[in-house]
């Protein structure tokens, strides 16, 4: 891993955040298997370093973040209440959307987290719109616009890149290249697999970056976020990571699109193990302390799950709330 100037406290923070996300995501899978969450649920296991590195480079409470349906980690890093996130994932009244959204549709607008979207590519212009809004008002906010390698083929994404460059929107497009779009491998869906080049035709600054070494990610992210804040122009990055889990909690057929050997090989890139190795080697943290931290978050995740589970299901009468701001729709069957 890269030698760096991070303080021991920051190093511990990144480690803790990655461990915390993984514990939370493992709990989400368990909740799904127990039938306490339904529909589609997608975990971030294996990809933790990307969100940790990038979101720690933001001014939390000021900057904006938007992503697709693989959206549990981002709000947690922005200070959202994990119990309210888990309650939403379980479809409960105390969730951020009172059970209306679910795993794919988490939002904490107050913290600057704008979701949480289920249509592949569909949120990418919305993210550019957030940047449009802040620039219009003369604010120096930065928007992180996360999307997948599969989403990077969407027509609306190309339209968005053109306008973001044309209108110099302070938006960072982060293509998380985890090598798969559901069951389709990168080379079967993209004619040119170097997705960073998507920025080239629009004259947008673009780079392909690592997404597994949290310290490297953090360094790149800080540099680029600072540049975008200062210059108020868009930037595109392709971040190389890997999804260890199936596409979603319902995907039990990973063997249809990748081999066991390939998965085993990918495990060597595990961002958490890599960080542990670094912390040990540089005498930042002992094996015992890391063990204690991992246990701490196991217990924490259990507590989060229990607290969320204590929240009631929404009342059927709530079904008409929030269709409009100022009226109710036609009611009844």
């Amino acid at each position, binding site marked *: 891993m890269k030698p760096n100037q991070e303080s021991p406290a920051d190093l511990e923070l990144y480690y803790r955040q990655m461990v915390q996300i993984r514990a939370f995501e493992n709990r989400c899978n368990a909740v799904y298997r127990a039938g306490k969450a339904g*529909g589609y649920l997608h975990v971030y296991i294996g990809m933790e370093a990307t969100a940790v590195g990038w979101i720690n480079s933001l001014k939390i409470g000021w900057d904006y973040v938007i992503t697709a349906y693989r959206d549990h980690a981002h709000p947690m890093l922005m200070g959202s209440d994990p119990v309210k996130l888990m309650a939403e994932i379980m479809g409960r009244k105390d969730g951020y959307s009172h059970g*209306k959204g679910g795993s794919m549709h988490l939002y904490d607008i107050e913290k600057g987290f704008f979701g949480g979207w289920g*249509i592949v*590519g569909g949120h990418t212009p919305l993210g550019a719109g957030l940047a449009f809004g802040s620039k219009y008002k003369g604010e120096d906010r930065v928007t992180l616009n996360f999307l997948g390698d599969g989403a990077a083929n969407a027509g609306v994404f190309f339209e968005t890149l053109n306008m973001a460059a044309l209108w110099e929107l302070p938006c960072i497009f982060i293509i998380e290249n985890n090598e798969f779009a559901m069951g389709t491998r990168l080379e079967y869906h993209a004619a040119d697999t170097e997705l960073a080049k998507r920025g080239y035709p629009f004259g947008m600054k673009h780079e392909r970056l690592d997404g597994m070494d949290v310290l490297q990610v953090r360094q790149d992210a800080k540099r680029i976020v600072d540049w975008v804040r200062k210059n108020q122009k868009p930037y595109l990055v392709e971040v190389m990571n890997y999804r260890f889990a199936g596409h979603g909690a319902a995907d039990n057929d990973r063997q249809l699109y990748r081999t066991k050997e390939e998965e085993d090989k990918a495990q060597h890139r595990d961002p958490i193990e890599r960080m542990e190795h670094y912390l040990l080697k540089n005498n930042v943290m002992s094996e015992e302390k890391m063990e204690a931290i991992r246990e701490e978050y196991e217990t924490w995740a259990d507590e989060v799950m229990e607290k969320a589970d204590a929240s009631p299901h929404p009342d059927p009468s709530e079904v008409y709330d929030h269709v409009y701001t100022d009226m109710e729709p036609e009611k009844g069957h």
Partner: protein
Amino acid sequence: MPTVNLTYREALRACIIEEMEADQNVFLMGEDIGRYQGTFRVTQGLFDKFGPKRIIDTPIVEPGFTGIAIGAAMTGLRPVIEMMTMSFSILALDQIINHAAKIHYMTGGQAKVPLVVRGPGGAANQLSAQHSHSMEGWYAHTPGLKVVAPATAEDAYGMLRTAIHDDNPVIFTENPGLYGVKGDIELNSGFSVPFGKARVARQGTDVSLIAYSRMVSVCEKAAEELEAQGIKCEVIDVRSLLPLDTETIFGSVAKTHRAVVVYEDWKSGSFGAEIAARIGEQCFDELDAPVARVGGLNVPMPYSRVLELECIPNEANVIEAVQRLS
């Protein structure tokens, strides 16, 4: 000919295989339909059988691949494209409505678009607001398209054949809740079900329940319970929305003098509302009560199972509507 008991999903697959074997111009396109065997496994095994030339995995670009299929159809190919869910066909509305549906007319009959757009439509289990749309009403509103929604495995098999043979763009919607229902299928028989012919799913004399897709079985169950209360319901499976078999529908209403139209789509402005309007216009003298409708609640589909179940019409809603008429 061997008769086999197949699920709706297997029946679709069997028809696809037979049609692909019969006609080299038939090919499939869609997301994760090949190597991944299809999200709902309708296309399982087809990639191995027919290879990548005819079973084409696309990027996640519904407008793009739909447009390419339309163009290919204009050259005489017969594409059958899969929408992973019909909700994603919203992205391709421009290609389907503004292009495919207009081509034969705008070219004054010079060009044809023998295209099938198929996939699961409607709510499943907590897929939330962006993945639960019933799209058939949007399409059945559009002149130039044909729209079908089979409720049984037999009809899935027979109507897909008709769709593939049709020279017009056909929207073929499959409720995800139906993939497991079984039926007896006579393979390699060329069995087909013509469009524009409704099916009388249950005979009755007191009330006509008019539905399509998964709501047919909801009506059948409601009819059973109502029978116990002495109310004999006739269940009409519309199955083809455009063209619509008004003859069978009006005939049933002339017999029962009462009609309830049942559909999962949002209640307001749906195709079910169109059916109700036609009955009101054409059967006024036959009716002993106003035409009733049972539809989905007019809200984006909520994630919570409690709220979701509130939105989707069920047997109790149908029974209540019938009782209100009697």
